[in-house]
């Protein structure tokens, strides 16, 4: 990724990399995005006029696997970054490939889950649960997919030897985004899945 600001070639007022400031700013903004979606989900929890409800639909085992995979992918990417910063090419390639694979498996899990629920008779139109569930988890899944694309691009660059220790910042900002997408799931997993039988 050669996308860098011109200004970065000079020192900055804080000594911090501008792209890192920018990605953190963006993450702060995304907090409000997901808070609005999660808030909407909870406002309408248990308010569907007809079934199937969250309690009847959601299945814990599969999504627990997906959750573990996503958590581990955070570990993988931090190891990849560690490798990149130390100039350890093998470590970078191994862990970054693992991250991309984990991300893909999560997306695969979600596609399987969605199609399974649709077969069971829950679409986005069925009721408020369907609408809020698919919207919230779907937007999270979109974020995961964008992250996979981003990290896969970096993986290709890493194979070409372009993620040198000086350019590890390119992986660092992608990793920050990836961790953020992970912590959003850390909230969604208990709130949507484990609290599915909650009666407000």
């Amino acid at each position: 990724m050669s996308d860098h600001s011109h200004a970065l070639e000079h020192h900055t007022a804080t000594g911090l990399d501008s792209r890192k400031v920018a990605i953190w700013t963006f993450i702060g903004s995304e907090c409000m995005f997901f808070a609005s979606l999660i808030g909407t989900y909870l406002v309408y929890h248990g308010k569907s006029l007809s079934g199937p409800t969250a309690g009847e639909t959601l299945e814990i085992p599969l999504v627990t696997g997906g959750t573990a995979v996503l958590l581990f992918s955070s570990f993988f990417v931090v190891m990849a970054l560690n490798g990149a910063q130390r100039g350890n090419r093998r470590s970078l390639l191994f862990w970054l490939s693992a991250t991309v694979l984990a991300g893909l498996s999560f997306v695969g899990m979600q596609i399987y889950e969605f199609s399974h629920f649709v077969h069971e008779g829950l679409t986005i139109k069925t009721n408020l649960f369907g609408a809020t569930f698919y919207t919230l988890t779907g937007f999270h899944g979109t974020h995961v997919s964008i992250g996979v694309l981003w990290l896969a691009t970096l993986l290709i660059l890493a194979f070409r030897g372009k993620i040198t220790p000086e350019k590890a910042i390119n992986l660092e900002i992608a990793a920050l985004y990836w961790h953020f997408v992970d912590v959003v799931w850390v909230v969604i997993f208990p709130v949507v899945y484990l609290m599915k039988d909650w009666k407000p």
Partner: protein
Amino acid sequence: MATSAISHADQVPSDHAEKRGLWSWITTVDHKRIGILYGATAFIFFLMGGIEALLIRWQLARPENTFLSPELYNELFTMHGTTMIFLAVMPLSAAFFNYFIPLQLGARDVAFPRLNAFSYWVFLLGGLWLNISFLFNAAPNAGWFGYANLTTNQFSPGLNIDFWMIGLQILGVASLAAAVNFFTTVVNLRAKGMKFMRMPMFTWMSFITQVLLLLAFPVITVALILLMFDRFFGTHFYIPASGGDPILWQHLFWIFGHPEVYILILPAFGVVSEVLPVFSRKPLFGYAAMVFSGIFIAFLGFGVWAHHMFATGMGPIADTAFSLTTMLIAIPTGVKIFNWLGTMAGGSLQMKTPLLFSIGFIAMFIIGGLSGVMHASPPADLQQTDSYFIVAHFHYVLFGGSIFALTSGAYYWWPKMFGRMLDEKIGKVHFWLMLIAFNLTFFPMHFVGLHGMPRRVYTYPAGLGFETMNMLETVGALLLALSQAIFIWNIIKAWRGPRNAPADPWNGATLEWAIPSPPQEFNFAVEPEVHSRDPLWEQKRQQGPLPEPERVGGQGIHLPNPSFWPLLTATGVAGIFISMMMIQFLGWWFVVAMVLWFLFSVYNWIFEPA
């Protein structure tokens, strides 16, 4: 990356000659040119919004008038509000952010110059999309805050609402990208010695505005996504018959909408805080109090949204809480007003046009602020809500507030931006006519509002005592239009005149006045260093009057390369949203094509040498 400054050095032309031609504007990444693009585009949208207002006033001049059909009237007031907020006041502020934040910071550009160009192009496409709706006879028609469930397919089956929500989504992308950029710019590109508490007040207030943009816009994005899903994919977020609740829209909209009000006014506060010290020949009174009251206003701005919803029946506890927080906001705002007065008190006032508009701002904003505190009280609000009293209130803060301050900024900074002085005599005529016409238009609305005239209704019956006031308001609106014509005349006159504005025509205090008018492409030949809040005044105290800065070659200064990928990526973003609106006609392939086009442009952008 660290070496690219060297490797590019041989490509740098020996001097940064002024670039010309359409292509240079399309590919520009210069914050000053992007600022001018924002300003020019926003001014054209401002005039369109003004024409819509004139049509509305013409219709309301007489009772039971048939000049406009009720349907067209709905479209006009919706587009008037949407245009003035999203396509006029916000981008006019953005014009000043672009041009003056880097200059006041002593920087050569913003942190991400291409992202900056991208923001402008996305804004332009969003604004065009909203207005193209007129050509399809399907302009948005549900009010600027598009209350559910009026906006559902059942009650708004046409394309009108689709144009509105897709247009707003596109504009939201522009605002968010710009906010990330300017936030980073202020954090990282301050000149040597410019601590946060030495930043000029315009930059400070703009900085706070970016935080509001970052935290408020995602909420309306979600609100609009839910509406898109309701309209395009058959969900029921806002449809009561299926368990949905239209009140959710109101909450989400106003969680965005109230911070949005401060997004519209904080940059105006900043402009006035620049103009008053310079024309009073005295530093800003209570600098720290100004900074912290700004932060406090922004923070409280997230805790008052439901005062727009007293009429929905939220219960006594919520009513009390939101009433209190709303009244609380009057305190930091009052602090600001007293500090402006304190700045002028005992100063050697130079009664130039920028100062007149700033003083006009203070007076008009106080009136608007007072009527605002009135409907902070729920019982009073229930009388006033949805009446012309509210229309009077928000025009006093948005027109009397934001537009007066932005006009002040235009007169103040015009010589810096274009190297030409606006005429003082015409400026004064502009000010007095605008002040009188403004009050003639909007002051009577307080009375007709309290007498019960509802807003957003295309006509009124005779005999209720509304006739005289409405006629006065229409006359006022025509005079307001005349005052804008005088402004345009002033601009044309300056355009034809010589380009001879000095670098520092007003004896300014901040860094933008240290460089030639208009600045050269690289802004500062030598990166400045500051030691105080008023660096230029300090320098003048020590060295006496400064000589006119020379235009220099600027050899070896590396500037980012021009690029057309920001524009093409912007078409990708707009294309994705527009393609969703087209699913009903074209199916999903167009969405897929637009996503691919977007990705293609993004990758080209990323791998293009900056």
